């Protein structure tokens, strides 16, 4: 990660100053913002997978894995929102714009996952909580894919967001070799970091459950 951070700042900006809105240097945030959004989507899909497994097997271990993935997905979505807002301020002149479809879609995403955790905390029975939140996690993960990848591309007229920063409409990679190396390196590093934090959080969750079971009432 240290190498990615250094490479992101010492190499020329990924955007040419002639094509950029505002300062071209701000476009360096692309190396961090896109991987954060990707990891958020990945976490929500992992949560959906473990929610499906929970509904099949009724094993609480799958519920714990699904919740941890949701928690991390929400954290990464918040980080992507913050970095996106910084980019918006520096290029479009304001932190938030309600007519920008990407910002509205990430806002809806944060709200629905906020509702997921609100529902979990409102249900005292672990079995009911796990079953209901598994169903919600599946529905929300499908919504997340639509909100992150489909809707902003389906309505490009409502977005100032760069659309061809990774691939263009024909599916070809638009980046030059240096930008490509740093970007995919960042994507791999963010994914590896997510895997590490996720496994750590799952292990911590298991330990806390063991401790809860051992404490006499």
């Amino acid at each position, binding site marked *: 990660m240290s190498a990615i*951070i*250094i490479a992101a700042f010492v190499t020329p900006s990924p955007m040419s100053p002639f094509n950029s809105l505002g300062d071209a*240097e701000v476009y*360096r945030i692309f190396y961090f913002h896109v991987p954060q959004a990707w990891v958020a989507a990945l976490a929500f899909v992992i949560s959906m997978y473990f929610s499906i497994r929970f509904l099949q097997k009724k094993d609480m271990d799958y519920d714990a894995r699904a919740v941890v993935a949701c928690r991390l997905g929400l954290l990464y979505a918040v980080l992507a929102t913050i970095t996106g807002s910084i980019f918006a301020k520096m290029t479009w002149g304001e932190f938030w714009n309600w007519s920008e479809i990407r910002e509205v879609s990430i806002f809806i995403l944060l709200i629905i996952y906020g509702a997921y955790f609100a529902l979990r905390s409102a249900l005292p029975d672990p079995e009911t909580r796990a079953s209901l939140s598994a169903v919600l996690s599946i529905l929300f993960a499908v919504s997340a894919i639509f909100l992150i990848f489909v809707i902003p591309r389906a309505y490009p007229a409502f977005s100032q967001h760069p659309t061809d920063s990774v691939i263009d409409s024909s599916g070809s990679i638009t980046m030059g070799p240096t930008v490509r190396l740093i970007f995919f390196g960042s994507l791999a590093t963010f994914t590896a970091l997510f895997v590490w*934090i996720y496994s*750590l959080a799952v*292990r*911590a969750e298991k330990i806390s459950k063991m401790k809860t079971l051992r404490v006499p009432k």
Partner: protein
Amino acid sequence: MNANYVVMIVVLIIWIGIFLYLMGLDRKVKKLEDRNEA
């Protein structure tokens, strides 16, 4: 000093902080797992 380098140093410090925190957490979780197994 170029503003890019200032931001880079701040980001590096934040990353090193997160990394050290995660390393410490990993060690703590490992210790607790070992204690639970024993």
